[in-house]
């Protein structure tokens, strides 16, 4: 069965994934709206930057984060100057890394939802004297609900499954940076296969349920619209 250190890793992973998803919703929504609406020249480069974590191996991200957040790197020097110390080996460091890592998984579904939005509805809202922000919250957001659901689930699940980045900047510290994926790796490397199976099997079941939920709910929303 799961040991106390396994449970601690599970809780830490849950905390990391929840906070990452929350931050990404706050950053990702305006970003997705901008990307869906803008026709300026920077649309393509900005989209490419957002999509980078999909194609880059986690070791690349982890390696550069380790350098830029370290004492000689620009982010590291900034955080040190602010009196926060450096970010690697801390939970905050993992959080920053996860936000980078899961960015496209949150931005892209929301952007897709915004792009398929019928703009005539927004125009109708504004002829009824809704301010742009009001129209956004009462028309655009509810219409884009399936996109947000997908974004939340993918952002959360992708952070739970993160491995290379947390291995490279986490430092494997119990209760602080040792998440489930690293704990499983440790079990396997120490040939504690039984413990590895409990956690790894749990991860498979969890991921399946999450994805099943996403596909079922999204289908439900689409059906109710028709």
């Amino acid at each position, binding site marked *: 069965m799961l040991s106390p250190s396994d449970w601690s890793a599970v809780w830490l992973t849950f905390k990391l994934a929840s906070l990452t998803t929350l931050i990404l919703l706050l950053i990702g929504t305006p970003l997705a709206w901008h990307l869906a609406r803008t026709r300026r020249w920077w649309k393509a480069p900005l989209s490419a930057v957002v999509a980078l974590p999909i194609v880059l191996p986690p070791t690349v991200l982890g390696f550069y984060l*380790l*350098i830029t*957040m*370290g*004492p*000689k790197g620009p982010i590291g020097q900034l955080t040190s100057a602010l009196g926060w*110390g*450096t970010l*690697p*080996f801390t939970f905050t460091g993992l959080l920053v890394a996860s936000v980078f890592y899961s960015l496209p998984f949150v931005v892209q579904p929301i952007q897709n939802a915004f792009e398929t939005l019928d703009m005539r509805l927004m125009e109708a809202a504004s002829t009824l004297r809704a301010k742009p922000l009001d129209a956004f919250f009462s028309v655009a957001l509810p219409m884009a609900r399936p996109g947000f659901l997908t974004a939340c689930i993918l952002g959360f699940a992708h952070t739970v499954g993160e491995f290379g980045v947390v*291995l*490279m*900047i986490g*430092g*494997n*510290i119990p209760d602080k940076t040792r998440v489930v994926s690293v704990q499983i*790796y*440790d079990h396997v*490397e*120490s040939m504690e296969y039984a413990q590895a199976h409990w956690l790894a099997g749990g991860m498979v079941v969890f991921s399946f349920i999450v994805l099943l939920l996403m596909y079922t709910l999204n289908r439900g929303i689409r059906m109710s619209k028709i």
Partner: protein
Amino acid sequence: MKLFKQTLLAAAIAFSTASAWADEVQVAVASNFTKPLEEIGSKFKAATGHDIKVSAGATGKLYAQIENGAPFEVFISADSKTPKKLVEAKQAEADSQFTYAFGTLVVWSSKEGYVDDKGDVLKKGEFQHLAIANPKTAPYGEAGMAVMEKLGLTAAITPKLVTGENITQTYDFVSTGNAELGFVALSQVSKANKLKSGSVWVVPQEMYKPLAQDAVLLTKGKDNAAAKALLDYLKGEDAQAIMTSYGYALPKKAEVK
């Protein structure tokens, strides 16, 4: 059809004779020995004409790959436990295992003058992070924990430990400055008997169990003359000179057959 069979037969004969005369050997090597092996490999080629193809990785990972049929013929491990397990699993030739070198543990910092030559920096404890390879899986990590135990510092230092997956990652933590210091291998921080950068304390050998590094002939290489030649070459003076220049200690002459 007959022609097809004949061609196949001819090809089979051609391949079997080719492997009998093979002058290429597939080597699995622990990451910490990659650099010296490259140098040894080029001298070996000059001396014997045999080529080596090197795959580097963590010892435990290479073990799993070999057990699952990886085509390696020689295994140069970072410990003596893993080659022994391969012998027991009948994946390696029993009488071929030998210790080619001993690893040397050091406390290293990328900052000049940070680590003193007696290791007092550990007792002062003014650092935030001490990097160490996972003691559960890496011999250097285990040795580092033994040293802290000897110094009576385990309880004080444990909250400051950051654990690398192996000594290569541990070295990364220290070299990027994210950890002020860490337990790494002398071979990582020195070349040609000189410290490459930063400051170092070479931990006295009596403070930890010897880090014997063994090599073994794998079953897949037992008919390859080049594989045997490489293992012999590792015991020779040319190879040993390269190993000492990287900070490895040599096994006593009696131990080399």
